[in-house]
Every structure is written in structure tokens, then in C-alpha cells.
């Protein structure tokens, strides 16, 4: 038999070089794959990519818009990463985001004249509690009867979105809004201040602070240690005397609360009212981001900016008649290649020649 063979050999430790290189190669491969698609649809991939880059990262306006998208992505990703750390698969960041936005909206709608020092803290509290409770709704059956949280969190997303729709099409609809599904605009006191006069709002600081807190919790804290143990082996955790039920409830609540905060920041910082379709799927993209970042809070911040840029770039090329779904496709391909490439961080490829001699070194 005249052929080359290869085999995979497990590495003793994950290769640090590969950990760094693989995401880069994955992005390139994803662009290549997207490029093939663009060529097939009769577009010029380089032009499109260049346009996407320029409109998202290459101008002040683009950068601002990228950050505007990145903030909710950062927050929701941090939220789900906390649950993922304990192997609780919270797929419900989208719904928790909507519930947070909804609860936060209630305050300025009901008491529009509250002063800012009551209004904003109140909205933050309400947003977080609502997001947290929405998640807790799935955590309770999970803790008591082991009801699969993937299904329940996912399903509650649709319920949450419908609730918001019900309110903005119904009781909360702005009477002066020419029948659009929107609430009345918030008073100035209910708006998160922007950075200078840009659209980037102070929600960015929530994300930065939370990333630091989570990084410390994961790495150095007593509670983070127990989350880690429970996530790795529930039986070992029980054996060590850790309370699993209590941690499921707590972690799910906090995970939801962070996504709820993201929803609050979006309506308060960007839109200034509640409306139909406030999220283009931040809560779902968050799952990809958390995963690509390997649940590392600092990496989440960076990857969120990248994904924010992809989204903004995607909108930008629509002008050229290219579907914005290009961005979604690229997101998916990046995840695909990163997961596929992961094998190279844990295994090394050895090549063998025709006579079974080893070629690679």
C-alpha cells in the first residue's frame, strides 16, 4: 500500500501555541468560507469584507456603533458564563434580557417624575431582579426535580418576548406614538448618561466592572471554587458537603440578573423606551461568545467587541444588497472552526510515510 498515513497523538498538556493560533486561523477560515458564499452570489468578497471592516471598526461612527452592540453582548455573555461555569446551561439570556428591560421600563412609565438618584438605581434593581426571577423560574424545577434547564430557559425566551409584545402593543402603548408598538419615551432622569455626547453609554462600565468581579470570583474566591467543583462533579461536591440546590438557585438567579441588567441598560441607555424587538438575538450570540472565550471574563469583553463589529458590518453591507445574514453566517462559521480546531490543542498530528516511518517531527 503506497500511501501516507497520519495519526493523532494526545498531548500531555494543551499546546499554548495552539490555544492562541486556532482562534486566528478559525476567523480566517470562516472569512474564506463566507467568501466562497459571496462569490457564489456574485459579490466581490474582498470589497464586502473591507466595507464591513471600515463601517464597524474603521471610523468613529462605526466604532461607536460597534461598542453600542458590544455592551449588551458583554453583559449577556458574562451572565451566561456564570451559569456555564457550573454546567448550568442557561440558554435563556434573551428572555432574561427582555424581562429586565420590561421591569426597568415600568418605573419611568409609572413614576415619570422621579429624580435621577431614585430613578436609575431603581431601574437597575428592577431590571436585575426581573431577569433573575425569570431565570429562577427554571432553576427551581431544576434544583428540585432535575428538570432540564436547557429546555425551560429556551422556552421562556419566547414567553418573555411575547410579554413585552403584549405590553407594547397593548396597555403600555404610547397614545401619542402613532400606533407604533412602543411605549412613551423615558424622562431624562431614566436615561443612562452617555460617554461625552456619544451613543456609548455607561452600561459599558457595568460590563467592565462585572468582568473584573467575575474574573476574581472564578479564580480566587471561595464561592467560585465551590461553583467550579459543582460544575466539574456534582457527586464530589455533595460528598464535600457543598449545597448544590442552593448554588443552582443562586447562580441561576445571578446569571439572569446580569442579563436583566443588560436589558435595562439597552432601554435606558440606547432606546429610551420599550419597544417590539429590542434585541437582535443578543442572548443567543452570548452563548457563542461565552463559549469562544472559554468562560474567561476578560476574553468575553474582547470577543464581544468582535461580534459587535460583525453585526454592525453586517448591517452596513445591506446597503450593497448583501443580506445582513452574512454576519450571522460568519459568527456560526467561526464557532464551527474553533470547535473543530480544538482537537489540535489537545492532540498532535503525526505523519507516516509509505513504510510506516515517521515523517513529522
Amino acid at each position: 500500500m503506497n500511501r501516507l498515513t497520519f495519526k493523532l497523538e494526545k498531548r500531555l498538556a494543551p499546546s499554548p501555541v495552539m490555544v492562541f493560533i486556532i482562534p486566528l486561523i478559525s476567523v480566517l477560515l470562516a472569512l474564506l468560507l463566507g467568501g466562497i458564499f459571496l462569490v457564489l452570489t456574485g459579490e466581490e468578497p474582498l470589497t464586502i469584507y473591507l466595507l464591513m471592516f471600515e463601517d464597524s471598526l474603521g471610523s468613529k461612527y462605526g466604532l461607536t456603533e460597534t461598542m453600542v452592540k458590544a455592551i449588551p453582548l458583554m453583559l449577556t455573555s458574562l451572565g451566561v458564563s456564570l451559569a456555564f461555569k457550573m454546567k448550568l446551561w442557561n440558554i435563556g439570556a434573551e428572555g432574561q434580557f427582555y424581562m429586565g428591560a420590561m421591569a426597568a421600563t415600568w418605573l419611568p412609565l409609572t413614576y415619570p417624575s422621579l429624580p435621577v438618584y431614585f430613578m436609575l438605581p431603581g431601574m437597575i434593581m428592577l431590571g436585575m431582579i426581573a431577569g433573575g426571577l425569570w431565570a429562577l423560574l427554571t432553576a427551581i424545577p431544576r434544583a428540585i426535580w432535575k428538570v432540564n434547564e436547557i429546555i425551560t430557559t429556551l422556552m421562556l425566551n419566547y414567553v418573555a418576548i411575547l410579554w413585552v409584545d403584549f405590553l407594547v402593543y397593548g396597555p403600555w402603548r404610547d397614545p401619542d406614538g402613532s400606533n407604533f408598538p412602543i411605549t412613551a419615551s423615558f424622562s431624562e432622569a431614566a436615561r443612562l448618561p452617555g460617554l461625552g455626547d456619544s451613543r456609548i453609554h455607561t452600561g459599558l462600565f457595568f460590563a467592565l466592572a462585572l468582568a473584573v468581579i467575575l474574573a476574581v470570583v472564578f479564580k480566587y474566591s471561595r464561592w467560585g471554587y465551590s461553583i467550579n467543583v459543582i460544575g466539574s462533579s456534582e457527586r464530589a461536591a455533595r460528598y464535600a458537603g457543598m449545597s448544590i440546590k442552593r448554588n443552582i438557585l443562586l447562580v441561576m438567579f445571578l446569571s439572569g440578573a446580569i442579563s436583566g441588567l443588560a436589558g435595562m441598560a439597552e432601554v435606558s441607555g440606547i432606546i429610551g423606551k420599550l419597544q417590539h424587538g429590542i434585541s437582535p438575538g443578543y442572548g443567543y450570540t452570548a452563548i457563542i461568545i461565552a463559549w469562544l472565550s472559554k468562560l474567561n471574563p476578560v476574553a468575553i469583553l474582547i470577543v464581544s467587541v468582535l461580534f459587535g463589529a460583525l453585526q454592525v458590518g453586517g448591517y452596513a453591507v445591506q446597503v450593497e444588497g448583501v443580506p445582513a445574514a452574512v454576519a450571522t453566517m460568519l459568527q456560526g462559521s467561526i464557532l464551527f472552526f474553533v470547535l473543530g480546531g480544538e482537537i489540535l490543542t489537545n492532540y498532535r498530528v503525526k505523519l507516516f510515510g509509505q513504510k510506516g516511518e515517521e515523517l513529522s517531527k
Partner: protein
Amino acid sequence: MNQALIQLKGIVKTFPGVIANDHVDLDINPGEIHAILGENGSGKSTLMSVLAGLYKPDGGKILINGVEQRFRSPRDAIASGIGMVHQHFKLVEPFTVAENITLGEKGNSFFLSNKELKATISELGKKYGLEINLNAKVWQLSVGEKQRVEIVRMLYRGSKVLILDEPTAVLTPQEAGELFDNLRRMASVGCAVVLITHKLNEVEAIADRVTVLRQGKLAGVLERGQINAKEMVNMMVGRAVASKYDRDSSPVGGVVLELDKVNAFNDMGLPCLREMSLSVREGEILGLAGVSGNGQREMAEVIAGLRRVESGKVLLNNGNISNLSPRTIIDLGVAYVPEDRLGMGLVPELNALENLILKNYHQPEYSGRWLLKSKAVERNAETLVQQYQVKISSLRQPVKVLSGGNLQKLLLAREISSSPKLMVVIYPARGLDIGATEAVHKLLLELKTRKTAILLISEDLDEIFKLADRVGVVFDGQLTGDFPVEEADLEEVGLLMTGSRSTRERVKDDEPAHI
């Protein structure tokens, strides 16, 4: 003497970081039962995998009837008449025995000729005394029967050399006896049988010749007449091993653990402990013998607070600890080495630093209100790893890469260092080699001198008789025997383990009939 059927010369096989076989030679003659003996990690399974074509050697030669062969795959090895029966059977459970036997055969027509097959197999059966029901589905078979299917499969493919990897590990004593009879019959008609094992009594019972490996190297070959346990241990371990330990004979203290008519349910909700009562005293080892599945694991869990006590009481130093939380019980000084080292006792993905504080991470010694004291955690791990001689390349490596012996040492290090009042250990030496077993036993004996009460649950009567002060027998969730070790009789304990009544009682019962 005839030329050897198979010769391995200077086999070298390396894996990343280890040399599994270092210039190993081996001769196998037709008609012999040849044992390959060695501790875990000595390279015996690797050597046999090389012979069976699973691994390609990095150096050395394989000669069959004096002709050099290169195996590219197990198929080549099978074509040369070498078949291997693995420890974990490679059978397709929903398929019938006949389908499994012919699976992967080339040259058969698409539809199996059942008649022909049955004829061939019944002929094989007659020749070797192996009877199997060809139409049974594999999942319906007992472990011993599955093993027989594997053997017949190899014979059906024309194997002249049969390699069995630790074949008795999964068998009951009766099944093992049957297997040995079959193997002898096979050898008597000219097959060569290669037995990979680390059990000395098996080698003594059945082997014509034994090749001993130690740390990947050939340690020696013994012929039938030369085979004796002491010599083999010396070769395996590289030094003499105590057949008896020095036991601290100072008197035992007050009762530490008492179970008073405890009832509990197993995971399926069926009663697994029935009115179980026993007690262990300070500085005493109670060895609890029993076939696993008779409530031992559940009893340990009840004591550790991991399983509900339905009725009855668990007392620790006369305080009722029934149904207290696991953490409370840990903090009261109960240590527990579970059967399942990796997954319960230790967290596979976490490193040694993290695993060594699993039970006391919340104590002020290792953490403040919020943060862990990383320096103290590190110092703790360094001290324990050194003190308990755990071989570990990095404290920051996930513990799942450690060998069974090192895992057990790590686990014992953590449990013993908490200076427990009561230690519950289940099957502490299961799967460990001689060296590691000895180390684990010595740790337990040392703990006894520190006045800890030890409940040792084991299936291994040797272990119990070597370590225990008192021997108890558990059967069907009840204590069916309790003797001081000096008065315990090996045979009687063995009988009680299988549910037979005490022989002494039977004699008593029989007496009136004569009067």
C-alpha cells in the same frame, strides 16, 4: 525443545512521556499457558497490544515460527493466528452470539450461512469444551458467558495464540475456575494461552511459565517448577514485600461509631440496610467483609450523611448524627474514602491544589469571608504531596492523569490530614498494584495508632485479615458475623459472605437430631 511459536525480540514502545516497553523479549511455545505478570503500568498490556497488532512497536521484531512479521492492524495479527480478548469486551450487545462471532469477517456472503457456522462452532465447542448458545443476544449473557463468546470468536478465526487481558478481573470465583479449565483444555490441544495478570495466585494455579515485567523492562522468566509467590513479588516490585504487617496491639478505646438498627433504601428505593447494627472503637479497625452490593456503599453513605436514615440511629461519640448534613458530619470528624476515587473522592478536572482542600476550603485556615488563601492552599498541597509520597509532576495538573495508586494516596492524604475521629474506607486497594496497596495499608495502620476508629469495607479477605482487629460480615444489608480477628476463620467468613449460615450454628442445629 521445539522452536518457539512466537518470539518477541527487543520490543520498544514509547508514549508521550513514558517508555511503556523497553527492549522486552518474550517467547511463547505451543501448548503452554504463559502468564505475563507485572504491576499496573509495568507495560504488560502494551506488550500484548503490540503482539495483537493494536500498537506498532517503535523498535524490535516479532517472529512467528521464526519468520519476521509486521502487523499493520489487528487483522494482520489475527491472520497470523493471534487473537486477543480484552478486559472490556468488544461485543455488540443487541446482536446475537452468532452475529458477534462472525462480525468483521471477510469472505462471508452477505447472508450468514447459519448451518455452516453452527457446525463449525459446535466442532470448536467439542474440541475445547466451550458451550455457548448461538442464538442468544449478547446483552442477555452473564459476564463469564460474554467472555466465552470472545474466546470462541478468536478460535473461530483460527487463533492459535490466545491473549487474555486480566480475564478474571470481572469474573466470580466459580466463573474463573471454569475459565481456567477451558484454558487448560485449549493448551492441551496445542494452543498457546497468554494470560496477562497481576494476581499471583492465578499464576501459581495455572501457568506453565511466567514472564515478569517491571517498569517496562523484562524482570525475569520463571519455569513451572520455579514459580513461587515470593520470588515473583521480588521480581515484580523489585524488593521483598511484607506478607504480614506489624500491628499496633495497644488496647482499643471507647465506642466512636455506633449503628443502631439502621434501615435505609438504595437508589432504586429498595431496602438496602435492614436493622443494621455495629460499632467501632477508638484505635480499632473493623474489617467488614462482604460481596459488593450487599449494602456496603449505602452504609458508608448513611454514615457520611449522603443517604437518608429511614429509621434507627447513627451515633458518633454517643451523639446522634443521623440525617445531619454532610458538611456537619465532616466537621464532626468523619472522614470517608469512597469506592469511586475519581468523580466522588476527587474531582477529575481539578488539580491537586484544589482537590486537597475539597472538604476544608471553607475553614478559616484556607479562606476568608470571600477569597481563598492561595498561599495556604499551596503550602498545604506541597506538604501533603511530600508527606504521603504522591508522585505528581505538577500540582497544577488535573488529577485525572494520575495513576490509581497516586489518586488513592492523594485522597488518603486529604482525609487523614483532617485528623478524623472516624475513617470510613471502601475497597481501598481495589485496582491498585502491590506497591501501592502496601502503601495504602500502612497509612491505615498508622492512622489506627493515632486512635482513629476505622471502618474498613472490603471484598478482599486477605486485606481484612491483614489489617482488621475485628472481622464483620455483611450480607443483604445485615451484619451476619462479628469476630475478633484471632477467632475468625477464613472459610467461615467466606461462607457467611455468600449468605450461608454460620457453620458453628449449623453444627448446633444438627446436634439434637442425634439424641
